[in-house]
């Protein structure tokens, strides 16, 4: 799949994955990179940017095996941004589908 397609929606996907439950970096990186064929490392800078923008917060939690894990939690601001992203995405998706399908939208 075109890498440019993926880059545009990564923020939205990461936020969406944190909507259901808090998660740690490796978990997000692992499942997202398997789903949309990315390098595992791609997700980490995005998580860091989202944290800097206040979309997610972080905390450390002990794990049964190994050192404590850094968990990511979706903040209120992150939830609102995600809603907007999804709305924009659906609108955009509709228009693009129309264009590539050759239909006349409006």
């Amino acid at each position, binding site marked *: 799949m075109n890498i440019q397609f993926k880059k545009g929606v990564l923020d939205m996907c990461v936020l969406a994955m944190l909507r259901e439950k808090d998660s740690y970096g490796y978990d997000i990186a692992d499942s997202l990179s398997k789903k949309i064929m990315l390098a595992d490392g791609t997700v980490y800078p995005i998580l*860091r940017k989202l944290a800097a923008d206040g979309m997610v917060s972080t905390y450390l939690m002990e794990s049964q095996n190994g050192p404590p894990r850094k968990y990511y939690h979706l903040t209120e601001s992150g939830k609102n941004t995600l809603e907007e992203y999804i709305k924009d995405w659906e609108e955009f998706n509709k228009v693009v589908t129309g264009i590539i399908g050759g239909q006349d939208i409006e």
Partner: protein
Amino acid sequence: MNKKEYLDLLSKELGALPYNDVKEITDEIDAHFEMAKQEGKSEEQISDDLGDVHELAKSYINCTPYKLPQVLKDKEPKKKSSTWAKIFSIAICCVAVPITCLWVWFDVGLATKIIASSSVFVLRLTNFGNYGAYKFAVIMNQIGSIFYVIFLGCLLYFGIRLLIAAGKKFIRFNRKLWTRGF
């Protein structure tokens, strides 16, 4: 590439970021290595899966809200003009404008004189038969006129050329003085 090599290269590539950020980033990637190892992957395999270390460092730097040191963006600050340079610039303009006017006036005068002398020369030639006893004097006068007009012509030619050259130089010098100072 094993874990140590990957992390060393990553922290080297992140050199432009503050130390704390580099530490946090390498800790997170270190944790990724540890967790992936528990799933039975080799360090080499994990490095490959993480992707190109240069790309990773680049994404981190692009994602960082901090401003990078100015040196990385601009080469050197531009020299600013001072108030004194501007005052001096205006002052030399005040001198240069009257000199230019005088010069132009002088050139126009020269051109007029050349036209006048040439027409008299032509008139004398056409009326040459009427001069009678004055013929010799008129011939000498005509020869003198030729040299006179050539002399004035040279003066006018070099006068205009000098005016243009000096004007260009002055404008360039004064613009530099105005924008960048002494």
